[in-house]
C-alpha cells in the first residue's frame, strides 16, 4: 500500500526577498514560518513543489536554489497565469503556501564520473541552475561539464548575476545564445541546438539533462543522439499541469505514466516508449 499520506495541506513560508530577473520573471527566496519545516524540507534538483497563494490557487514550480542550502528555498516564476500573476505582486514578508517536494529529480548520484551536458531553454533554466550548483560543489566527482542556455532575447535571460559564480570553475563551460540579437548582446545568436556543433563530446561518457519548452527538447534530443549520447543517458524534465502532485488527479498523465510521480524528469528511453504522444 501507499508509503505517504497526503492531504494537500501546505505549510506557510515567508518571502525573504524578491529578485527581478526581467520584465516577466522574478525569483522569490522563501523561508518556512516553522523552524521544523525549514529543517525537514529537502529536495533533489529537478523536483518541484506546489506554491500557493491563499484563495487564488497553486502552481507546480521547480525549486531552483541549491539543494544543500537549508536556510531558504528559491523559485523563479514567469508571470503566466492566476497564481504566478498573484505571486508577481507579492513582496518581502508576504506568505506563500508550499507543499512538496514532489516527483523524481535529476539522477545526480548515478551520473558521478560522467561528463555532463545541460541544455536549458527559457524558463527551463532555473531547475538546471540547481543542478549546476550541485555539480560545482561536488566538482571532483564529475567529468567535463557543459551548460548550454538559450533564450528568446537578451531581455529574456535569467540568472545573469547567479551565472557569474559558475565562471572560473574548472572544466565547466557555459554557452549562452539568444534567438533575436540586440545592441546590448554580443554573444552567440541562434537556437540552443546551434551550440552543439562546437562541443567536443564523447557520447559514451556523457549524460545530458534538459529542461525547456517541448519543441526545444524534441530537437535537443535529436542533437544529443547525433553526438552519440544514449537514449537512457538523456534526461528530460517534462511539463504538464500538475495539480495534486501525488499521481491522482490525472492532469499530468501521459499514457499510463504520471509526470508528477514518475517524473517530471524522465530518461528519453522511457519517453519514447510512452503509450501516448509526449510532444
Amino acid at each position, binding site marked *: *500500500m*501507499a*508509503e*505517504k*499520506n*497526503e*492531504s*494537500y*495541506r*501546505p505549510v*506557510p513560508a515567508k518571502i525573504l526577498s524578491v529578485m527581478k530577473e526581467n520584465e516577466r520573471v522574478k525569483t522569490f527566496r522563501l523561508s518556512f*514560518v516553522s523552524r521544523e519545516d525549514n529543517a525537514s524540507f529537502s529536495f533533489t534538483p529537478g523536483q518541484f513543489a506546489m506554491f*500557493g*497563494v*491563499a*484563495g*487564488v*490557487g*497553486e*502552481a507546480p514550480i521547480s525549486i531552483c536554489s541549491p539543494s544543500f542550502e537549508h536556510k531558504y528555498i528559491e523559485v523563479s516564476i*514567469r508571470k*503566466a*497565469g492566476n497564481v*504566478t500573476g498573484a505571486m508577481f505582486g507579492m513582496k518581502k514578508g508576504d506568505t506563500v*503556501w508550499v507543499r512538496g517536494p514532489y516527483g523524481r529529480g535529476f539522477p545526480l548520484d548515478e551520473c558521478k564520473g560522467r561528463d555532463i551536458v545541460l541544455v536549458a531553454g527559457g524558463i527551463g533554466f532555473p531547475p538546471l541552475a540547481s543542478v549546476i550548483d550541485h555539480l560545482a560543489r561536488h566538482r571532483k566527482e564529475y567529468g567535463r561539464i557543459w551548460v548550454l542556455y538559450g533564450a528568446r532575447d537578451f531581455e529574456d535571460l535569467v540568472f545573469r548575476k547567479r551565472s557569474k559564480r559558475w565562471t572560473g570553475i574548472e572544466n565547466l563551460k557555459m554557452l549562452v545564445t539568444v534567438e533575436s540579437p540586440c545592441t546590448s548582446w554580443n554573444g552567440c545568436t541562434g537556437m540552443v541546438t546551434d551550440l552543439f556543433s562546437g562541443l567536443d563530446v564523447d557520447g559514451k561518457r556523457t549524460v545530458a539533462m534538459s529542461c525547456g519548452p*517541448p519543441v526545444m527538447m524534441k530537437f535537443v534530443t535529436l542533437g544529443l543522439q547525433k553526438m552519440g549520447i544514449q537514449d537512457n543517458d538523456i534526461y528530460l524534465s517534462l*511539463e*504538464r*499541469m500538475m*495539480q*495534486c502532485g*501525488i*499521481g*491522482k*488527479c*490525472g*492532469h499530468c*498523465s501521459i*499514457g*499510463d505514466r504520471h509526470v508528477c*510521480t514518475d517524473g517530471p524528469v524522465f530518461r528519453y528511453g522511457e519517453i519514447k516508449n510512452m*503509450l*501516448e*504522444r509526449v510532444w
Partner: protein
Amino acid sequence: MTGGSFYVIKKSGLQKLLDSLSRRMTVFVPVKGPDDYNFREMKPGNSLNIDGYENTEFPPRMIFMPDRETILEYEKNSAKAPAEARTAVFGIRPCDVHALNILDKVMLGHDYREEHYGKKRERSVVMALACRKAGENCFCGSMGTDAVKEGFDLLFTEQGDGYHVAAGSEKGERIVAENKRLFRKTDDEAKKIRIRCKKNMNIENLPEIMKDMRDSKIWQDVAGRCLSCASCTFSCPTCYCFSLTHESDIANPDRARVLREMDYCMLVRFSRVAGGFVFRKERNERVKQFFYHKLLYGYNNEGALHCVGCGRCISECMAKIDITEEVRKVREEHGRKK
C-alpha cells in the same frame, strides 16, 4: 470474502435497519427521480422504495468523491481539513463495488494515500445489493463483475419475502450485532441469480490488443461522432480525475478554502498548461484517453480493467457511442491486421 457469516432479514427489517442507521449517520439509498434512480439521503422516517430499481443513473463514486467538496480551510497560519461525516450506502450494485475497489487502489495505493478519500471510505458502510436482472446496457456478465467477493460490508440478495445477507467485513458484522433482532443467522449461501446481459465485451487479451491499435482509424471515427460533452467520464464509476480549486472568502480575507472538484479528460481545458498550451487538443486524443484509460492504462497500473460493464457511458452518450461496439470493431480490425 469467504468465511463471512450469513443472515436473513425481512423487507420490513431492512427498512428498520436503514431507519436506525439514518439516526446515527448519513444514509444514502437509491431514490427514483423523474427519470432514473440516484443515490439520495434517506432521513429517519423515509421509506425505501426500490421496486423496479436496476442501477443508479450516476455512480456511487459521487458519494465518496462528490462533484465539489471543501477539503482544506486556510486560516492565517494553518490549513485544516474539515471533519468527515459517517455514511452508509445501501443498494450499490456488484459492478459498482468492483469500481470502488478500483478507486481504492488508485486513490489509496501507489506512492501516496489520498487522505480525504481514505477518511470517507473508512467512515462509510457499503451495503451492496445483488442484481435480479440486467439493465438495457449492462455487460457485467462478460466482464466478470456481475458477482462480488470483496469490497462490501454487507451484501444483500433478494430471497423470498426478504434478503439473504452476507457479511464481508468486521464493520458489517458489527452492524448485524448492533441490530441483531432484525437478523436471523443461516448456514446457507445466497441462491445464485443468473442474470443475462444483452451486451457483452470480449476482454481476452484486450489490453494487448489496445496497445497494438493506438494508431487505428477507429479513434478518428469515434471522435467524428463524439460531442466532447464528458457524459461518459461524468457517469463512469471508475473515473476519478479532479482539480483542486481555490476560493477566497470575500467577507473574511484571512480565510480561504481549497475544493476538490471532479474534472473530465474529455474537456479541452483538462490538459492545458501555464501559457495556454493544450496537450490533448484534438478530440481523437481525448476520446482515446477515455478508452485507453479504461482498457489499457488502468490495467497496467491497477491490474484490472477500469471498465466494470455498468453500461452508464452507453446510456448517457448523446451520440450513442457504445464502448462494446467500438471494442468489437477494434478486435475485428486487429484480427484482420494479423
